[in-house]
């Protein structure tokens, strides 16, 4: 704040008696103060004791932001765990990472299933399948209570899932021995995914028709979606309509957009897993 006399005084030069000292707001300028002023000549006429706290605050915020980007993942996980007991009240859903889903779609909206919806299983199989939802539900089912972890950082703990194990479905369709990978497509027309036979075995992936205690809703990818435990959410393709057994792994939509093909949240498959002797192959 420009106090009288502290600005570059053109009046001082104008003569008229004593030259004006470079002195802030009428206080007696001690030598120390004069030195201090001399060191910050661009300081806009601030009285002694004025500090650039604004700049420091901005720098502190920038530092906190950088820390948050580097380590925020862990903080967010802690917050999600803390808020989990509140989740049933619905309050937690209003808080970022409060344990609710952030629902993504890569098309304009949430696609509606075609009226004659069928889940197709074909490719390297002996008995291609065209399953209605009731037919899928009639197959031996698997129940899971597992977290849904998004690659962008949010997580929904303890989600209830019901569906048919992907490997069971492959057996049911009579998968041929040369089939090594699954290729999934969605009826939204864009979303694709892939999973190796080994990853399906290791993760216990299911073709889910029930989620959160009810049939899978349209937003969550109903009527049928994939759920791959232990892997980031983008592997769990929504609005699933077509499973093809192939012998070459292809990149799905999100992998083409830069996400790793190896989507294990831990970075590697669960250590408790024992390789089944018949399908031993490298991780993708």
């Amino acid at each position, binding site marked *: *704040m*420009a*106090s*009288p006399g502290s*600005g570059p*005084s*053109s*009046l001082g030069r*104008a003569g*008229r008696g004593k030259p004006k000292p470079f002195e802030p707001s009428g206080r007696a300028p001690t030598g120390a103060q004069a030195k201090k002023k001399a060191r910050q000549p661009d*300081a*806009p006429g*601030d*009285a002694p*004791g*004025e*500090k*650039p*706290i*604004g*700049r420091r*605050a*901005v*720098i*502190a*915020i*920038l530092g*906190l*932001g950088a820390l*948050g*980007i*580097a*380590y*925020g*993942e862990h*903080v*967010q996980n802690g917050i999600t765990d803390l808020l989990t007991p509140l989740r049933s009240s619905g309050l937690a*859903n209003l*808080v*970022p*990472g409060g344990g*609710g*889903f*952030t*629902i*993504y*779609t890569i*098309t*304009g*909206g*949430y696609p509606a299933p075609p009226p004659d919806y069928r889940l197709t299983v074909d490719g390297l199989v002996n008995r291609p399948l065209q399953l209605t939802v009731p037919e899928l539900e009639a197959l031996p089912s698997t129940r899971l209570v597992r977290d849904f972890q998004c*690659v*962008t*950082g*949010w997580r929904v703990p303890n989600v209830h899932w019901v569906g048919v194990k992907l490997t069971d479905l492959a057996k049911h369709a009579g998968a041929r021995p040369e089939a090594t990978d699954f290729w999934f497509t969605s009826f939204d027309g864009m979303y694709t995914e892939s999973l190796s036979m080994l990853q399906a075995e290791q993760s216990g992936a299911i073709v889910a028709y029930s989620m959160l205690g009810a049939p899978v809703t349209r*937003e969550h990818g109903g009527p049928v979606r994939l759920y791959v435990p232990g892997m980031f959410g983008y592997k769990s393709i929504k609005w699933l309509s077509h499973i093809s057994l192939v012998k070459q792994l292809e990149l799905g939509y999100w992998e083409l*957009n*830069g*996400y*790793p093909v190896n989507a294990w949240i831990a970075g590697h498959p669960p250590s408790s897993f024992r390789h089944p002797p018949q399908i031993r192959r490298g991780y993708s």
Partner: protein
Amino acid sequence: MTAPTAGRTSVTERGSMLARFDRVERAVHWTNAILFAVLVVTGAALYFTPLIALVGRRELVERIHLYAGIALPVPLILALSGSWGHALRRDIRRFNRWSSADRRWLRVIFQPQPKRSYTRARLRIGKFNAGQKLNAAFVAGGGLVMLASGLLLRWYRPFPLSWRAGATFVHNWLAVLFVIVIAGHILMALADRQALKSMFFGRISRSWAERHAPAWLDELDAQVAREAEMASVVAQNADEQQGDKASAGHPAAP
């Protein structure tokens, strides 16, 4: 008081109104306000499930949010990139510098109410109080963090996955903070209609400044006094020069 130099209108003239914000500052404020509103609305439509279902058109909403975010610093940069930004630059320097009065103002924040107001009324606060200075620092620093984390969310490929998770965390929580702080900013503006009007028309009364910004008023008065003094000095010099010419001219004159 001597009349200031012709051509330049002094701040304390024109009745008892003072120039608080010039055109450039007001333009920056209101473009920022509009962009911020767009960001809040589109951000909510991207984040809250019921709104996502209601609004849909995710790609379009995403694009508007992205462009509005990238545009947010542009008005400020434009305003600072020329001589027209001198008032804004001066106010930014004011935001940066904290006087001992500002620090006192902030320290009494936990005092019970009537006492706090009494304490603060005695402080010689400048054009901006410590709350406004904190708000400015938050908007500047937080805005940059929002921009950086938002850009990282959009162009995530070169970075580790955990940064993307961290950027989501920072962007979400800071957005909540921003909404709270800006809501407070709007409520305070609505509670002080004079201050709000000065953001529309630029001027504020001398009595307002006496109550809220006494040190700023001192500063303005000192400036007026300086200008007046300067005007008289200039006039004096001109007189002397004329006098010199007159005396020097005579001998050589035919």
